[in-house]
């Protein structure tokens, strides 16, 4: 690439080792391993039902895989729950939007500041000075994210009333508010038009570039994936069939077969 990256791609921050996940008799993921390097944009692609979202849910601790481990910064995380992963610095968005529908955009993003909120309910009830200070800092950071995502004009609107594309932006904002070192994006551009997609790509790259946040994203639009990601892993029927740079993936015969179908 022509330009110099502020955050050079470093060591593996997240490693998935031999994960297998089955729902009853249905195998969603079979013995899958790959890694994510610090500061990179990593895409997970694959046909429908390939186990991409299940993979993210395993990394994040929503699903408990029957086999395999997830390592964060070289350490195996023993008892993965979404909460523990959040505390370690991993945030995410969801495929089918998991926003707090009755809360405003600002409040949604403020929930993302939860781990930077140390005051307890009693202190909040009494509005002690340190609560005000903390709330002010959190609000400032949230406003920063809101203006970064260019959604200032809707910040007091309940998110349930917003169109889909904007909701996706808010969800990215909420993930950003956690100041996590790695963010998992589950189909951040699904259902968006070309313009919205371009915006979203810009935000993802900008975050990665300016904050050095590692991005892991699931996406169906091949053009987008090949454009913005550093490395791509391809899943099909719960197995890794390709792993490498976009150019390598495009030349990979197995990947081409999986996407275009092959005569047997």
């Amino acid at each position, binding site marked *: 690439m022509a330009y110099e990256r502020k955050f050079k791609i470093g060591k593996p921050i997240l490693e998935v080792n031999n994960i297998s996940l089955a729902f009853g008799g249905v195998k969603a993921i079979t013995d899958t391993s790959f890694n994510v390097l610090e500061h990179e944009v990593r895409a997970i692609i694959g046909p429908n039902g390939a186990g991409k979202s299940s993979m993210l849910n395993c990394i994040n601790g*929503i699903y408990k895989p029957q086999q395999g481990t997830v390592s964060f910064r070289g350490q195996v995380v023993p008892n993965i729950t979404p909460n523990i992963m959040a505390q370690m610095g991993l945030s995410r968005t969801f495929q089918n939007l998991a926003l707090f529908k009755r809360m405003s955009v600002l409040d949604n993003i403020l929930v993302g500041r*939860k781990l930077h909120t140390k005051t307890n309910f009693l202190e909040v009830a009494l509005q002690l000075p340190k609560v005000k200070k903390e709330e002010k800092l959190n609000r400032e950071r949230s406003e920063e994210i809101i203006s970064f995502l260019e959604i200032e004009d809707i910040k007091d609107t309940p998110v349930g009333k917003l169109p889909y594309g904007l909701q996706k932006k808010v969800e990215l904002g909420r993930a950003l508010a*956690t100041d996590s070192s790695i963010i998992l994006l589950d189909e951040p551009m699904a259902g968006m038009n070309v313009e919205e997609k371009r915006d979203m790509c810009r935000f993802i790259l900008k975050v990665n570039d300016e904050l050095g946040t590692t991005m892991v994203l699931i996406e169906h639009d091949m053009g987008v994936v090949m454009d913005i990601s550093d490395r791509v892993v391809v899943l099909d029927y719960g197995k890794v069939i390709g792993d490498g740079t976009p150019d390598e993936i495009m030349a990979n015969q197995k990947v081409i077969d999986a996407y275009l179908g092959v005569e047997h």
Partner: protein
Amino acid sequence: MKPIFMTYTKKDLINLAVCMVLSVLIIPTFIKTEYWYTSILIPWLCLALATIGQQIVMGYTGQLALGAAGFMAAGAFAMFNLILRVPDLGFVGSLIVSGLIAAAFGILFGLPSLKVRGIYLMVATLASQFFIIWMIDKFGWFKNYDSSGIITAQDIVILGKPFTTPLAMYFVCLAVTTILTLLAMNMARGSTGRNWMAVRDMDIAAESMGVSLLRTKVQAFAISAFYCGVAGALFAFCYLKSLEPVAFDIKLSFKILFMCILGGLGTINGAFIGAAFILLFPVLLNAIGNNVFHGAIDATIISSIEQVIFGLLMIIFMIYEPLGMAKLWENLKQSMKSKLSSSGIKGVKSPVFKK
């Protein structure tokens, strides 16, 4: 609307000032009938406080709980025993400790919320209602081995001064309710309330943001039970002036649930509106029965009509305005405002009378 004092806007402060002037100055100067204090204002404040408790767990945290009256009973009997056995605590101290005792029950009966949700949780929380009442009935110690079944509540004495007149009791209830309402508002608008609502709206996402479901749910149950406990103590000492477990039966729990839903889930002012409506509506029906029909309608029929109308209203609100009366009030204010401002603009731009 820029917040001046934390999350409070200028409008909020004006509202608070208006409420305070109304309740501290205007009501005591103009209302002299004891009936209003003993039968309407005092129970209204107590039940509104309990409804705030119900709001915290149900409206804000989204946990369907049905056992507010059980926690109220716990608070009331804790208060009785504390004043009886630990007189040094004083009235205010006993009130706080009885709230905490109710909160302990809240934690205990809130634990099922980690595993079950929705209507199943409602059934599980009913256990609190029946267990607490059963416990008080079963063990004579709680009632100081009183054989009559109804115990007279002790007189309220704060700092050596007795508060026995209806007006004085009204002020006690008002002070406690005001303080606890402000604290509830602070929590609801601050980070605590955001965690509650995050759990209510999408628990998986909340957890992924680092909100602990265990802590948040149990915390909500504990705070809710604290409010119900304090409300129960005030209800027994200022309104009933007696203690009997039957007063805190499941009907009262349902009443508080209705107040919560009709008032508007997830609003603090809805608690007051809902409580006022449910308390005043029967009074209004009785007045209509007596004055319009001159007693031609039997009192039992009136109370049946009351149930029918409540049921209908619940259905109507659930379908058309799930956010309840607080939302209706908000909409009314909005439309008034826009009418005023639009008529103002018209007046400037075009002649007032067009032919």
